[in-house]
């Protein structure tokens, strides 16, 4: 209470009001110069801050995500099942399985193991594990899975 009264009486003093106004103008000029000088970087930093804020915002409700994506991914799951059925129908006693399909089937359990970062882990499992350059590029294309001799 004492502090509130003192502050109120100080604000009414003419010399304090003038000084406060001068400080305000000084701060305003300097901030304006700072912002104008550092644009567009300042704007970018501000937007990145806003993005970080958004990322810290509550997650989207699982129900809303399911509403958005369930049907699309139900269809994709059925596509995978149909693809594997098609491969099975084509297989015969003299027709061994395709290496790419074998590797694909091997990573499918990652989908249901309950652990995070499924996409990264599947991509890692589908990556060439070697680290040295190969001697020569004999083809240009990629198959989508590591070569059989590099697959664990």
């Amino acid at each position: 209470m004492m502090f509130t009264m003192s502050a109120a009486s100080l604000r009414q003093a003419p010399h304090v009001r003038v000084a406060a106004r001068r400080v305000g103008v000084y701060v305003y000029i300097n901030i304006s110069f700072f912002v104008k000088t550092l644009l567009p970087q300042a704007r970018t930093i501000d937007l990145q801050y806003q993005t970080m804020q958004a990322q810290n915002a509550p997650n989207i409700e699982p129900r809303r995500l399911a509403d958005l994506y369930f049907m699309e991914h139900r269809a994709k799951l059925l596509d995978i099942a149909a693809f594997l059925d098609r491969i099975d129908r084509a297989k015969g006693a003299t027709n061994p399985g395709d290496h790419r399909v074998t590797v694909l089937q091997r990573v499918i359990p990652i989908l249901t193991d309950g652990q995070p970062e499924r996409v990264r882990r599947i991509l890692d499992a589908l990556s060439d594990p070697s680290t040295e350059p190969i001697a020569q590029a004999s083809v240009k294309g990629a198959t989508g899975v590591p070569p059989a001799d590099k697959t664990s």
Partner: protein
Amino acid sequence: MPYIDPHIHMVSRTTDDYQRLALAGCVALTEPAFWAGYDRSSPQGFYDYFRQLTEFEPKRAAQFGIQHYTWLCINPKEAEDTRLAREVIALIPDFLNKPNVLGIGEIGLNKNSRNELAILEEQIALADRFDQLILVHTPHLEDKRKGTRLIMDAIKRNGKIKPSRVLIDHVEEHTVREALDRGYWAGMTLYPDSKLTPQRAVDIVETHGSERLWINSAGDWGPSDPLAVPKCHNEILRRGRPREWIETLSWHNPRTFLSQSPRFQVGHD
């Protein structure tokens, strides 16, 4: 909303696509030199291609109010023939003063071979010698993780190139963190089958943030969509994320990186 598509191969697209891009809000794009789908038989083929990128495409884009910029190099798919590659590299300095050239790209690796790596190192040195920005192509599918690391190691070995002047393109979930942690910019390419879908690109932003990231369509002669960038914008809004994400990924971040080249003059009015 105006946006920049920082990686698209317009030589493979129709004039109608320029119109569609303009109608969707694209005001500027950058076009890296790349593989035509077949191997060119001589350096002269590249000379003509570089003329197309620096003379013809800017005029075609300007008809629709789009600013066209480009990057020059020999791409990694044609780098196995080192003799041809070196003859092409020798052509590049004569084009670096063209008004729409931003730097060297898209250089990188394809199958991670020794010859590809040798030509990559020579083009990194070229960028250093002429003080150019670098746009990096990372390999496809199973070769991406290994190739991305080999490329970043090669840039580090050069010792003179600042990571902040290099964009590592075509990152995915297993490469994005390492590229950003090593100080590079990173590009997310939106493709229907390979690379990223708009949904996965937004997942990456939710997971890793938007700092030093951009999105591009890399529209070319294969399965690709020149309107993939605005479709990703729609995905951001559909998911209830703020419009500022769109501005960051498709305006402020590309402008900040590309404006390191004094030639890039988009939004500098």
